[in-house]
């Protein structure tokens, strides 16, 4: 019973919100190009679904590519930093600088480097920059999170450097890696959209392009419909990774 009300609560709340929105638009006679009512957004969503789905797929593919690239680079760099304090001190300022610089600010530069005829590469690169940090810091934290007493045991039993890495530090880092990837996946989607705003999209137009295009033409309902697709996509990806993380943790710790 409690579970049922828990499930119903957000549905009812959002329903009421949409209803109030619809009523306000109609009663106050707000022009559709300013704020379309939910019904108009629903219509736009159905009408433009094939186009929006294709654009959504492009954005998702960009985000996933970015995630893969960020994951590989960040894991390798975290490993290097985890193995050598010197490497860590050397790259830490660079990583932090990259992280605090807004991606939109470096978009024009990356667009030039990627080649002006390949903005989609620039978008992937930019999204990868955004997704890099959570994986890097998660992996590095994990490599350093070794139980000190367990490490003493490894020392007592004469473990080599490699044995300590393979049998102690890497397994310890696994849950931190999951967490880092979960955060990174959400950020990769955000990065893919922001980067497309900044760098354009070339042949493969994503949802950012759809939003810009619809806004420019004052098709506000269509812009909203693209937003809905984006939100659903982001939330689904997060839920999927959350589920994967939970499963993986069960595997890691046996329950």
């Amino acid at each position, binding site marked *: 019973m409690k579970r049922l009300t828990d499930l119903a609560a957000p549905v009812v709340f959002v329903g009421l919100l949409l209803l109030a929105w619809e009523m306000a638009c109609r009663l106050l006679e707000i022009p559709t190009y300013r704020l379309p009512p939910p019904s108009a957004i629903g219509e736009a969503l159905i009408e433009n679904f094939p186009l929006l789905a294709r654009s959504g797929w492009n954005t998702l593919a960009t985000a996933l590519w970015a995630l893969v690239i960020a994951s590989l680079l960040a894991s390798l760099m975290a490993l290097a930093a985890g193995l050598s304090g010197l490497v860590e001190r050397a790259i830490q300022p660079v990583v932090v600088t990259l992280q605090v610089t807004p991606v939109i600010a470096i978009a024009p530069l990356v667009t030039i480097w990627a080649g002006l005829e390949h903005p989609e590469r620039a978008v992937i690169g930019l999204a990868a920059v955004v997704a890099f940090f959570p994986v890097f810091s998660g992996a590095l934290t994990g490599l350093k999170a070794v139980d000190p007493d367990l490490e003493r045991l490894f020392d007592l039993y004469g473990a080599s450097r490699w044995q300590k890495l393979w*049998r102690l530090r890497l397994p310890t880092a696994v849950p931190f890696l999951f967490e880092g990837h979960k955060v990174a996946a959400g950020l990769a989607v955000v990065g893919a959209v922001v980067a497309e705003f900044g760098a354009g999209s070339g042949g493969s137009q994503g949802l950012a392009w759809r939003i810009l295009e619809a806004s420019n033409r004052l098709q506000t309902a269509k812009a909203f419909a693209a937003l809905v697709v984006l939100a659903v996509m982001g939330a689904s990806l997060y839920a999927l990774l959350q589920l994967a993380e939970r499963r993986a943790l069960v595997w890691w710790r046996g329950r």
Partner: protein
Amino acid sequence: MDLTLGVGEIVALVGPSGCGKSTAMRLLAGLEQPVRGEVDRAAGRGETSLVFQAPTLAPWMSALANVALPLELAGMGRGEARDQAHEALARVGLSAAENARPAQLSGGMAMRVSLARALVTRPRLLLLDEPFAALDEITRRTLADDVLTLWAELKPAILFVTHNVEEAVYMASRVVVMTAGPGRAAGEVAVEGPLPRPAGFRASEGFRRSAEAVSTMLAQGMERAA
């Protein structure tokens, strides 16, 4: 402080927190170098084992894999290491839990796995650093008897660190008492009676006398430091 452990002897080290018990243990394990003085060990590398206050098991490994770890780190093949780990787990009564992960074990069971891991290398020196501190009274007493039974079978020298007077007297033939000031021994008490302890030992006159002697010495050590 001057501490000597005979071959196959059990010595308990009692003292208030911060008196240097754990440091003494790490020095003996060779995990830290002494600032002054020296540590002489007949037991070399691979002949010393350590059990901490927490079970300190790797959560991603089964009980069996955890116990086999010291042997595998020393270069033994996986199959042989697991065979011996299997034996060690049987010795602590945990054959049924071989494939369980640490998160699936109770505190007492996890401690037994930790003990099996310490014994699997057949150490000549076993260092126990408050191994029962996190357990409830009943588990603590069963485990104390189990450690003594295992000692009788394998005869390692044991240094047992604790802040519990009764436990120290129960576990050891000699109790070294530390003062509150770090790194000083107040003296030592020889405990009468056979090891492993016979039933009802806690109620015996010898146990009471030894516990009292240790308590008095502890109190004097605290005063002197204060």
